[in-house]
């Protein structure tokens, strides 16, 4: 079957690059494509990532060479040069990243050459190659961070033994990236560590420049950011560990023990305190949760970063029965293999394709009296799964890109607080039907 995609749940490498840059403090994109790409791709996360919106210099503020037919025929290097020069004059930034799109890659513009000309003059300008035909938004994230950390920033001369960098969550394409990062930062800080999350409002450009001195990189993805962390280790000598994003106390206890052990610290007091708080809330909700029979079959439809953490929380913490876990990002066989383990995953992307797989895996009763259908059912996926859920009479919560039926600010599902939030959101959907 050819690799066309129905309703892709990602966009192009350029989109991922722009979404990533838009959350990096002091970093300015210069989009080397038509004027349209920047606006259209910003729309993908400004709408589809819980209304992430525009940042300091993203969306319709992002500088763009705006190539037209003239440049396609005669080359766009001159236009790009002028755009960079004027961007440096007009836009206040600490690092400028030229990101290419399909058409300027196809005509073979020497984007690196133009950027290097500025770099040689001492201007902080680098270029990345991000055409759609080379990869999707997840790749765009890796390409940008690779350029910053493994190409632009000098090798670390010393190490800060308490500093960790966090990688693996993709701004925009992991819609809860900010809340998740905040919670991870909170917990790691309570262990006595210092944390670079890069993408949350608390971060500054100094978090980027200090990254090479980190003692450890934590990658919250079995798939994305691994190559980046490997190259980081080669360049800066910082080792990395790969963890699933911990959701809820069961997973977070384990995560904190693992990190504490790595640093030779004791996580006991943090875990004890956090559990006391979590269960202080969780316990009181048990009356409603149990009296109202809020036990569900669950089907998850998410990207690879969230699939396993979510299934684990639902089954271990809530005691739900996970019937299917669909992973929607386009993965290589090697990447799929990295996800194998306790939770059987199915790799599909199209809305229709997934809806059909659900029907096939779990046929409905067709009027039969004695039939074990999977009800009550909760589908936890993207907003696109809403119609699938409605058609089946299932509950539905959007947690994976695209999410456009809720607005997200600092909400996250990782850690202890995130576990409570996810519990609250899942049950909140049910409570909102009352009255």
């Amino acid at each position, binding site marked *: 079957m050819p690799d066309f995609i129905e309703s892709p749940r990602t*966009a192009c490498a350029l989109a991922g690059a722009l979404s990533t840059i838009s959350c990096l403090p002091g970093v300015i994109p210069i989009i080397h494509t038509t004027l349209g790409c920047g606006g259209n791709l910003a*729309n993908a996360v400004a709408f589809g990532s819980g209304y992430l*919106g525009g940042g300091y210099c993203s969306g319709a503020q992002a500088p763009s060479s705006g190539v037209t037919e003239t440049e396609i025929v005669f080359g766009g290097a001159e236009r790009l040069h002028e755009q960079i020069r004027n961007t440096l004059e007009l836009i*206040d930034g600490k690092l400028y990243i030229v990101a290419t799109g399909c058409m300027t890659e196809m005509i073979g513009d020497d984007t690196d050459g133009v950027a290097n000309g500025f770099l040689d003059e001492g201007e902080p300008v680098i270029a990345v190659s991000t055409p759609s035909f080379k990869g999707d938004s997840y790749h765009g994230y890796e390409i940008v961070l690779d350029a910053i950390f493994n190409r632009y920033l000098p090798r670390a001369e010393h190490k800060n033994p308490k500093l960790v960098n966090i990688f693996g969550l993709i701004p925009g394409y992991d819609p809860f990236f900010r809340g998740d990062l905040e919670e991870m930062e909170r917990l790691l800080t309570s262990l006595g560590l210092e944390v670079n999350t890069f993408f949350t409002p608390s971060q500054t450009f100094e978090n980027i420049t200090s990254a090479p001195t980190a003692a450890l990189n934590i990658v919250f993805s079995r798939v994305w950011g691994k190559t980046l962390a490997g190259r980081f280790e080669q360049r800066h000598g910082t080792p990395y560990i790969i963890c699933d994003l911990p959701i809820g106390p069961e997973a977070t206890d384990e995560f904190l023990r693992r990190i504490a052990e790595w640093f030779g610290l004791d996580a006991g007091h943090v875990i004890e305190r956090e559990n006391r708080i979590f269960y202080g809330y969780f316990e009181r909700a048990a009356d409603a949760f149990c009296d109202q029979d809020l036990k569900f079959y669950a089907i998850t439809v998410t990207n690879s970063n969230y699939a396993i953490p979510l299934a684990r929380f639902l089954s271990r913490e809530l005691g739900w029965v996970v019937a299917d876990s669909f992973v929607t990002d386009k993965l290589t066989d090697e990447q799929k293999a990295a996800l194998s383990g306790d939770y059987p995953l199915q790799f599909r992307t199209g809305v229709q394709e997934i809806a059909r797989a659900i029907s096939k895996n779990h046929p409905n009763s067709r009027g039969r009296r004695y039939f074990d259908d999977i009800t009550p059912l909760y589908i936890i996926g993207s907003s696109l799964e809403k119609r699938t859920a409605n058609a089946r009479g299932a509950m539905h919560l959007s947690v994976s890109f695209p999410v456009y039926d809720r607005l997200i600010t600092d909400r996250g599902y990782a850690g202890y607080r995130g576990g409570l939030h996810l519990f609250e959101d899942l049950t909140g959907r049910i409570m909102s039907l009352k009255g």
Partner: protein
Amino acid sequence: MGFYEQSVPPVRDTRLKIGDSYHGNACGLVNCGRDGCLLQKNRGFWQANACQMALTLMMAATVENAAIVMHAPGGCGALLHSLSVQSAKGKARRGKEPKAVPWLSTNLTEADVIGGGEKKLLETIKYADREFRPEIIFVVVTCAPSIIGDDAEEVVRQARPQVSADVVSLHCPGFRSRVVASAYDAFYHGILRGLELSPKPWVDFRPLPQGSPESELAEKNYQFERSRTVNVWNATSIGPVDEEEVRRLLSALGLKVRFFAEYSSRDELRMVSEAALNVSMCNVHDDYMLKFLEEKFGTPYVIAGMPIGFRHTRQWLVSVARHFGLEKQANALADYEEGLAREAIGPFVEQVRGKKVLICGGVVRVGAEATMLAELGLDVLGIRTYHYDDGAEPVYEDVVKNLPDTPVAVSNQLFELTHQIKTLKPDIVISHNGTQGYIAKLGVPSVQLWNVDSAFFGYTGIYQILRRIVFELKNTSYRDRLSKHVRLPYKPSYFEGDAFKYIKD
């Protein structure tokens, strides 16, 4: 060979005198448009915007029972998630089934970019047909396949006999024009070449034996009905409330009103030929289509601005009515409606008089809106239009007459908007969707130039626009506070100089 015979539509830049970089006043703009100096203008600094593909998709996503095949690398369709939601709402508001638009991407990879993506396109079209059984499959041809020279037209030709849907190609590569409005032509070009626009016997009507009394009577009935039927052409910014206002006014003149082409189905589009008149609601939307329909079916058309404000609404109504010999009635209707509306807006006019306003967005709408608000006593500090082309000339001749000294800029650029807001210091900005957040961050009150949920056209529109301005000014605390915490990306020195310093001749 005329434009309509070509498989790929012209962009506006080749069809019209057009521009997107200008500042001065309306008189200068009209002259610059006429003598072609507008064509030479450009910028040395640009910010990202939209492209003709975006607007083409906005229109295509509204068509009933359609599926969209993006012939593109994986990223191009990203905004269809939001367009699909928007169009589902638009369908619901028009009493149609609010189905999401299925869409697929051929997801061109490096190998396809080198080896061509035609085979993949055919497979994708066939899959879309089989899986979703749409009535229409729009094949959207973007930059990458246009540059590598994929013959999408040939693929569409091959696909047609193999699928049950009508296959319509929409050529809208962004690099071919910086002007987003080119999308209207790209969309209509696909419609006029790919779909039937006149009724089919036995499907849409039952042919009667020639010369029978039954047939003669039916024919007379039909022709009478047809002679009173107008097609009104909507697009993107014109919501159901505005359509209802237009329907209300034209119905009062005894006309039967149908809206095309957004939110129409394939079957409805076959009725396009069956009207006495095609009516535009905006000079830069549909001249391409209306001229085609005149050529093909002999249907005359009226392009008479946008029905916004008392003067423009009357002018628009009378222009339509003139075709039917109903000018007197139209004027009487306008007199009556104006009387009611003027009384209703009285309290609002008191509250907005003298307020300084900056107006930004689509070329015809901002022209009409500016003269309307000036007539109601507001102080128009400036007009910013996204593009300018010949089609808008009548509207800007009117601006020349009514607001000869008002600064007019052709700009869709946020940095220039930011500069103008900071230096002109408007009390309120009326601006295109997509800019509201940026204006709020500057701490300045603003209202939408259009949104498809509210009224802007006709008499209802006048009342509602003023009501929204008054509502906005009732409490500006949100933006006052927000702006204190937002840092702009522009260096302060820019605001000390000329807003338009990056425009080049």
